């Protein structure tokens, strides 16, 4: 990278690690304990994992024994959705690829143009087929930030004897996520979205559920997930969780920055559309289109100016496909192809937003001057 200012606004793809989490991981890495070993080194690792389990549970107000550590959000989503082969699966149309991919046969629950899942449609789908079901609706969408009525979804699911899984990868640290208050049976969370390390996540699963393991092994995680626990990663997850739990104040500042960016961009281009802006959404997320300029072009041009954003989820960022989320919200095709995702984090500052606005506005002016 050159000496040019680098502005990172792709926090929903990956949040930089918190210094405290880095310290925790770096201190744990050289230790030689396998948490399953009964000798002193093993017991020390086991103890550290159990402390982290408490912190992670506290972050989403769950019981520590309900926390199953995994390799990340994708594995957790797969574990939840493939864990009940006897149940039919319903997922919202705006779920992450790891939910859609884990349950390719699932019935799709539509969303409204606002970006909020259609609860009446969910009721209808559950009424129409009385077999035991599993419903998966995310806490907040990774592209638009729209917060879903998850407690309502849980209530409807339970009224139909269905289980409810909540992909809350985009939640903790940005909004208050309460496993018990929501009434979820299963919940996915990820360490690297909250300032913990990549390669660690968890599935919160009520311990009385008959969950079929995805990864069979040596009986770790109460037999629900085999494999030597990634003890440094888990310790880093715990450290990140502790800090993210104390984040509410920071996020109101982030929301103000996000709103400032939104107003400035819409002032520069009146036809710029914001997706999910009419309903409650994550304080750090802005999905916006620049009329007439393709997403990929915008992302590349902003990148040249040192502003890092994305055209959608990072997982599919390599491919140039239109967002299935905006499609589900009935955004016209031509518009959806011009949308980008701008996401902020706890260390984002006003200068970052100025940089974004300047680069975005200049690009808009350039594109429309040449078009004219």
């Amino acid at each position, binding site marked *: *990278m050159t000496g040019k200012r*680098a502005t990172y606004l*792709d926090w929903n793809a*990956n*949040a930089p690690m918190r210094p405290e989490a*880095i310290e925790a991981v*770096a201190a744990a*890495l*050289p230790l030689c304990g*396998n948490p*399953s*070993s*009964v*000798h*002193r*080194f*093993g017991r020390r690792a086991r103890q550290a994992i159990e402390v982290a389990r408490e912190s992670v549970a506290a972050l989403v107000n769950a019981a520590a024994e309900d926390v199953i550590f*995994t*390799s*990340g*959000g*994708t*594995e957790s989503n*797969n574990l939840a959705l493939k864990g009940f082969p006897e149940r039919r699966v319903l997922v919202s149309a705006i779920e*992450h*690829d*790891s939910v859609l*991919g*884990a349950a390719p046969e699932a019935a799709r629950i539509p969303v409204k143009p606002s970006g909020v899942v259609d609860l009446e449609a969910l009721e209808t789908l559950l009424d129409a087929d009385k077999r035991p079901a599993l419903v998966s609706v995310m806490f907040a969408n990774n592209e638009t930030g729209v917060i879903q009525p998850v407690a309502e979804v849980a209530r409807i699911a339970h009224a139909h004897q269905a289980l409810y899984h909540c992909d809350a990868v985009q939640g903790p640290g940005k909004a208050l996520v309460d496993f018990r208050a929501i009434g979820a049976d299963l919940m996915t969370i990820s360490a690297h979205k909250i300032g913990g*390390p*990549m*390669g*660690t996540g968890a599935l919160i699963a009520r311990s009385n559920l008959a969950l079929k*393991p*995805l*990864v*069979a*092994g*040596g*009986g*770790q995680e109460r037999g629900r997930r*085999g*494999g*030597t*626990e*990634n003890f*440094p*990663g888990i310790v880093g997850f715990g450290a990140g969780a502790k800090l993210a739990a104390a984040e509410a104040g920071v996020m109101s500042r982030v929301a103000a920055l996000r709103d400032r960016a939104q107003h400035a961009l819409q002032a520069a281009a009146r036809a710029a559309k914001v997706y999910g802006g009419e309903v409650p959404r994550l304080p750090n997320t802005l999905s916006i289109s620049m009329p007439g300029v393709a997403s*990929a072009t915008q*992302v*590349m041009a902003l*990148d040249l100016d040192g502003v*890092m*954003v*994305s*055209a959608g989820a*990072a*997982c*599919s*960022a390599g491919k140039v496909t239109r967002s299935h989320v905006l499609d589900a919200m009935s955004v016209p095709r031509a518009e959806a192809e011009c949308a980008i995702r701008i996401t902020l984090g706890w260390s984002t500052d006003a200068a970052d937003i100025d940089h974004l606005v300047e680069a975005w506005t200049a690009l808009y002016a350039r594109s429309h001057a040449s078009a004219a």
Partner: protein
Amino acid sequence: MTAAIARRANQPPVYLDYQATTPCDPRVLQAMLPWFTEKFGNPHSVTHPYGREAEAAVEQARAQLASIINADPREIVFTSGATEANNLAVKGALRFHRQFGKDHVVALATEHKCVIESCRALEAEGFRATYLPVEPSGLVDLERLERALDKGTVLVSVMAAHNEIGVIQPLAEIGALCRKHGVMFHSDAAQAVGKIPIDVDAMGIDLMSISGHKIYGPKGIGALYVRRRPRARIAPLIDGGGQERGLRSGTLPTPLCVGIGEAAALAQAELGAESQRLLGLRQRLLAGIMRNLPQTRLNGDAEHRLPGSLNLSFPGIPAPALMEACPGLALSTGSACTAAEIEPSFVLRALGLPDALAAASLRIGLGRFTTADEVDYAVETLTAGVKRLGAEGVTTALAGTT
């Protein structure tokens, strides 16, 4: 008090459980650290430089890992560890080939628990599994293996080097046999890679599991080698964004990938000298024990064995009591996964050991940071422990239970 014991007074226990896990090498840690701090991009965010530099680092690690087993980087699929890799190989191969009417997997009875459990999960789905008995040496009986294959066999799974008894299987012979019968060969090489030379081509291996934390790399990362020519076809275990050529979705953890790559590169560079050193230490330990405690018995083939690995039975001395009598040694009775179980090792039983002898067995693992002084200390400590317990007569009451 003997010499080595005196020198180690008030020190932390000597770590002799390198099969359970290895500490991350400080050089590996140094290589990883920048990827935790300033270089935090998501390697799949290729639209910006943070993502692209992460992607480049992941690809370099992939090449380092491929090099140590003579594979093409495109044949490496990163996973969260060897357990996931074993699940992916065994379940993935069988589930993929069901469409061709094939339904049978063969594994040694002494495979790692996660392979056995994967086979059991497949049986619950209607597949057939054969758990092949081994020779008293722990080695595979090739004729018996050949007889176990049938028209429906998809996969043979044999651990390259054993986690409990350390024996190294004749991989090239197994690979040739599998090739002859058109069956895929999977090897769990978590304990072997980086410790003995592995060549997937020369050994005819189609799928191979690798672990980061067994080779002085980080925990939470491993890989499955998946042959391209002829292509080893498997179904994914974890679906989603389609990373790893669709075989393993999920954001790749850049620092962990960098760590396993660096660990592989170090192991490759040092393998020759380090295996000689460990072999010397192992012989020193075994000779010392045999001199002091001649009734001790070595489990598993004496010759085809990992340089740093021993499994010893101390007749009449229950292993838990011996470990308790030797607080200065971090030892185990077998796989860490089953460390808390009271049952004697299923692996030693498969070797034909009576329960009483299996219950009197310890696994000893030497590794990169083991010194000659530690080995001498271990000899003295174990000798004193066995003699004391023998004199106290704790023996049969515990060890005699079946």
